[in-house]
């Protein structure tokens, strides 16, 4: 009889009685104690001797693993494998890494909590429980509480268990046999499951394809995007030469973009002076041009120390140097037009008044760094 018994169930109506019964039976070690109840009963987990769940520790461990992996990954991608300066920040910027570390921690922790709960601690996949085939299950799912002494090996004796439950106030007793089917992972079962998955995929795929082909689905809010138009840097069939972007008409020059009449900055210095008067307005405009185009390398005060030069180790000119203070305005203008050393020409980016305003502003910066007493008055 011992080998054929899965468990002995004792049914109760009163939650307090089942807790007391479990507390009395637990020290006798008649078998594994389990309880089946239609609603949670406070204190029953301790009464049947359930150890505190180890899920929390597992979640903690996996969470810390997630944090560490995210940090390792971000360090490797941003600082080692593909170093790329973003926004002038250091390559290893932990501040920027924290959100990703946080998300990966939560991802690892929640997936561990869900999956470990189902597959490790609740022992899924589990296709049927012997108690589901008992007579008592109808009552258990309604209003009765079942205390179950389950077969845990040699020391288990169904008769002793039955007596123990009766002595502790069980209203009725049922002996649940080990069910005949005990091979949940049979070949037929697996094949049926896989067949069902394949069938579901086929139905879903054909369905989605059919809906997209047969039903006139209008994409929302992209009609303006799809109108005929010219795109920058794209070819076009509208013009004979096949170019989308139009070159300037032959023989014309855009306002403020006359080609220079000089070949070197030195020549420019000899040839031309600043046609713009130095006013509050031109200086303000120069400051805007300078901070938009020049400050990124030459520095906000023009001393040649700036984010980019620091990051890449370049050596932009110090505009405050004595040499540059001695150069004429036209020379600075010429460098902007033609470029110098690593500095490219800024002729396409700035128009004439922008350049001359920037020259004024460079002079302002030089003056500010070499202020005399009367400047302060």
């Amino acid at each position, binding site marked *: 009889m011992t080998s054929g018994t899965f468990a002995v169930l004792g049914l109760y109506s009163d939650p307090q009685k089942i807790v007391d019964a479990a507390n009395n039976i637990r020290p006798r070690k008649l078998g594994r104690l389990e309880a089946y109840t239609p609603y949670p009963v406070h204190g029953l987990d301790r009464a049947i001797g359930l150890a*505190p769940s180890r899920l*929390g520790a597992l979640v*903690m461990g996996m969470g810390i693993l997630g944090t560490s992996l995210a940090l390792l990954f971000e360090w490797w991608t941003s600082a080692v494998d593909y170093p790329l300066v973003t*926004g002038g920040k250091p390559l290893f910027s932990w*501040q920027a890494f*924290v959100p990703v570390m946080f998300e990966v921690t939560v991802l690892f922790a929640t997936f561990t909590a869900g999956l470990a709960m189902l597959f490790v601690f609740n022992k899924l996949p589990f296709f049927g429980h012997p108690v589901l085939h008992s007579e008592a299950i109808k009552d258990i799912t309604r209003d009765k509480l079942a205390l179950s002494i389950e077969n845990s090996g040699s020391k288990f004796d169904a008769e002793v268990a039955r007596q123990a439950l009766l002595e502790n106030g069980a209203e009725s007793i049922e002996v649940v046999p080990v069910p005949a089917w005990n091979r949940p992972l049979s070949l037929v079962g697996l094949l049926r499951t896989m067949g069902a998955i394949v069938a579901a995929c086929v139905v879903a795929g054909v369905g989605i394809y059919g809906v997209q082909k047969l039903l006139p689905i209008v994409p929302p809010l992209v009609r303006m995007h799809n109108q005929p138009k010219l795109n920058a840097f794209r070819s076009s069939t509208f013009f004979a030469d096949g170019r989308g972007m139009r070159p300037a008409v032959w023989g014309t020059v855009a306002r403020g973009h006359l080609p220079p009449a000089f070949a070197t900055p030195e020549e420019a210095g000899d040839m031309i002076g600043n046609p713009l008067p130095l006013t509050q307005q031109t200086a303000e405009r120069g400051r805007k041009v300078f901070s938009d185009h020049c400050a990124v390398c030459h520095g906000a005060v023009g001393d040649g120390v700036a984010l980019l030069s620091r990051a890449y180790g370049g050596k932009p000119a110090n505009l405050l140097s004595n040499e540059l203070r001695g150069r004429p305005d036209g020379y600075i203008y010429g460098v902007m037009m033609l470029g110098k050393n690593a500095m490219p020409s800024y002729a396409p980016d700035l128009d004439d008044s922008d350049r001359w305003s920037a020259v004024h502003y460079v002079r302002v910066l030089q003056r500010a760094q070499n202020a005399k007493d009367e400047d302060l008055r």
Partner: protein
Amino acid sequence: MTTEASRSPLVRNLLVALTLVGGAGAAGVYVNAGPERFWANWLVWTLFLLTIGLGSLFLVALERLVGAHWSVPMRRVPERMASLLPLAIPLLLVAFLAVPVLFPWTYPEAAHNPILVAKAPWLNLPFFAVRLAACAVVWSLFYSFYVRGSLRQDDSKDPNFTVRARRLAPPFMVIFFFTVTIVAFDWISGLEPEWYSDMFGVYLFAGTFLSGIAAMILGVFGLKRRGRLPDVQSKHFYNLGTLGLAFTVFYSYIGFAQYMLIWYANLPEEVVWFKHRIEGAWQPVALLLPLLHFLIPFFLLVGGQAKKSPAVLRIAAISILLGHFVDLYWLIFPVLGAEPRLGWPELAMACLFLGLGLLQIRRVMARGADMPVGDPLLVKGLEWQL
């Protein structure tokens, strides 16, 4: 038992002596160390007491708002901790004298600063005083309603008070958030009026709420150790610990979000505020914050069993309160200079305010029954199961 010992006049006399020594020291601070340092200390300690009181009042109202049962047997503790408000509100009113000393928008130079001129409709003395008075009135009214009303209910056993307290909770929440934001903007970020952060109000609220929880934990165990509150059990602590853990994370989240956005945008007028606080001599203080306010309480409280352990909860609560104090110090003191000031003036002011705060807590801990015996929800709270 020890209930009698805790009422011994010796402790009271020691606290009175501490306060008097602190008071004398504080006068010395004003004369010898200058009004700036005096008022900075005053502000830190006043806000410390005020935020604990506000956090406790918030806990009381929060219980009413969500209809919680588990916390009813312990509610007398935050109600008593909220009695720091009648102490801190007058201290904050006195701190109005600090405004012309510490707050740059009151200086004559402010008229030449375009940012401060633009902010003048908000940052001007009459409107500042109006906001301060409005906050003080609102807090006093809510304090009187929730705390005194609950005490009256002990005798009257009037169940209608429980209903009225719940009805008032939603408007309380809205008004409370406004007042905490005003405190944060006026009294802390107003010290560097060119700085700007949307999130600062929420940041102070997170610290306020968290220190309210920490004070509640310490209060509950203080009473339990003296044999009072025998019916409050580990199931009740567990929820306190959970709340503490959740809002430890919330505080850290808000604190970091504020820092990261400013760090990322790197705008000069915003980033300089952090530059003064996390570089140079202030760096060790800044590093204390994540330690005391996040790492210690988080890892102490994250385990399930730990939330039922009085020792663990107490250490976490002490860490949070220390962290909250360091937080206020770190927010306010950098306006005095690039070096953290920590010397006899700070010690003297600490004696004064700690003495005042502890005397007040000691006084109110004897007030009324230890549990809200008139609240019809008390039975549910005692029977409540985890």
